[in-house]
């Protein structure tokens, strides 16, 4: 597999510890440095920020859709979600640059033109429809007999929603969570536009950063000759990305089996 071969030859030149623990990522500049941590930190911020936006709002709107909304409200909300899901990601990028970032600036004046926060917010909005729709499916699959049982014990609709429907649908919520994270990791276009291309080891969301996927795109589109060390960095970064995604899926499977509330 090409990923393994190229990564291997990359690690012949750059020691594994430098790659994993180095704090500078400047493979295309002089002095060259190959620490992947800045890219990891950038990716991490986008994922966490986007999840903070998408998961609570997505779960809440799914609970609203499945438990409270009238048929008419459903008929208007569902298409809105679908439209949101259909907008090209580059539009989200411009939305972040021209709207979210200026807004952030009014609250936090030190916000940079390119910053992780605004990218994370729009990625969150972008994956929101998927999260909401997956969670909605999960809550809808909770049998009505459970709701009736709870009501017959003197529960209010709020208690039924939060203490029966939500826990029973939790496995679906976790599945949505994992997919959301994967999409947030994979998103490049909006992130490059909004967060810039500055590998930067920081956890300050108001600064410019670069993510792993954004780096891969940047180098692939540039004129880096094949076979060079700079070219091989692509594969090394891709390998890290692959391992993280794999790890997430394994973790998700474990969590699902562990905490699933089964019902007939």
């Amino acid at each position, binding site marked *: 597999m090409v990923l393994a071969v190229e990564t291997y030859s990359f690690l012949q030149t750059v020691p594994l510890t430098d790659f994993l623990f180095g704090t500078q990522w400047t493979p295309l500049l002089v002095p060259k440095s190959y620490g992947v941590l800045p890219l990891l930190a950038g990716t991490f911020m986008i994922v966490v920020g986007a999840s903070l936006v998408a998961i609570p709002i997505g779960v809440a709107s799914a609970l609203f859709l499945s438990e409270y909304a009238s048929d008419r409200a459903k008929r208007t909300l569902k298409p809105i979600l679908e439209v949101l899901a259909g907008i090209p990601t580059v539009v989200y990028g411009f939305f972040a640059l021209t709207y979210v970032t200026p807004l952030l600036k009014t609250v936090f004046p030190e916000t940079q033109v390119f910053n992780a926060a605004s990218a994370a917010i729009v990625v969150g909005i972008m994956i929101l429809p998927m999260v909401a729709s997956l969670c909605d499916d999960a809550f809808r699959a909770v*049998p009505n*007999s*459970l*709701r*009736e*049982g*709870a*009501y*017959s*014990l*003197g*529960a*209010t609709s709020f*208690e039924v929603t939060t*203490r*029966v429907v939500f*826990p*029973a649908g939790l496995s679906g919520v976790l599945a949505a969570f994992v997919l959301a994270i994967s999409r947030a990791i994979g998103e490049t276009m909006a992130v490059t536009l909004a967060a810039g291309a500055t590998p930067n080891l920081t956890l300050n969301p108001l600064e410019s950063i670069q993510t792993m996927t954004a780096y891969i795109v940047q180098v692939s589109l540039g004129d880096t000759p094949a076979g060079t060390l700079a070219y091989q960095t692509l594969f090394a970064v891709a390998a890290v990305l692959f391992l993280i995604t794999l790890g997430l899926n394994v973790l998700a499977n474990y969590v699902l089996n562990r905490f699933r*509330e*089964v*019902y*007939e």
Partner: protein
Amino acid sequence: MENRVILDIDDVCIRYGEDLAVRNVTLPIYENQITAIIGPSGCGKSTLLRSLNRMNDFIHGCSHTGGIALGDMDIYDPATDPVEIRLRIGMVFQRPNPFPKSIYRNIAWGPTINELKGDMDARVENALRRAALWDEVKDRLSDSALNLSGGQQQRLCIARALAMEPEVILMDEPCSALDPVSTARIEDLLFELKENFTIVIVTHNMQQAARVSQYTAFLETGKLIEFGETEDVFTNPKNERTEEYVTGRFG
């Protein structure tokens, strides 16, 4: 009939959209007695039963006229809180519907959310004992309720209702999904529960109605055809439709 009326059903009509499912039913439910509601499938038994604790509120398009009173509480007064009603009138459903939680938490769920006072462990044990389930589950209270057999699950659902200490328990064909052994256990149980609770049970099994109940109401196409002491309804029915039904000539 020297018993006290606990639930007074007065001229009740229930519609699904335009369809009249229950027609002008007037019926007393006596305290500490078991009242069976029998009749052919689709005659409105479940609809009538569910109106007693306002479970029909959740069915879109279902409307209600007429009065139902529990003591001095008017169940269909808009000012009456349905939660309050359901604290006093519990329900057991046709198919066992335990929560996907442990046995203990199934029983404790209702008392917890309604903040009932008292020692929870004692309450859980008491409810399980009354539902004749304690000996079978006392060593595995933290197991999932879904690992129980169907009959045990249904007794768990009965225990779950008992833990709320309601005055009335509604049961909608509680044995229809169970085998004969489990059914017999639940019938025995009903006998003991009657000491402390009032029970209204829907069944399309006439032998069951005859075995367990003191009063029987016979419904047909939404109308109350006959109501009386079970013995009279089965051995000496006043109406010939009732006679045809209880002797098994239709239904």
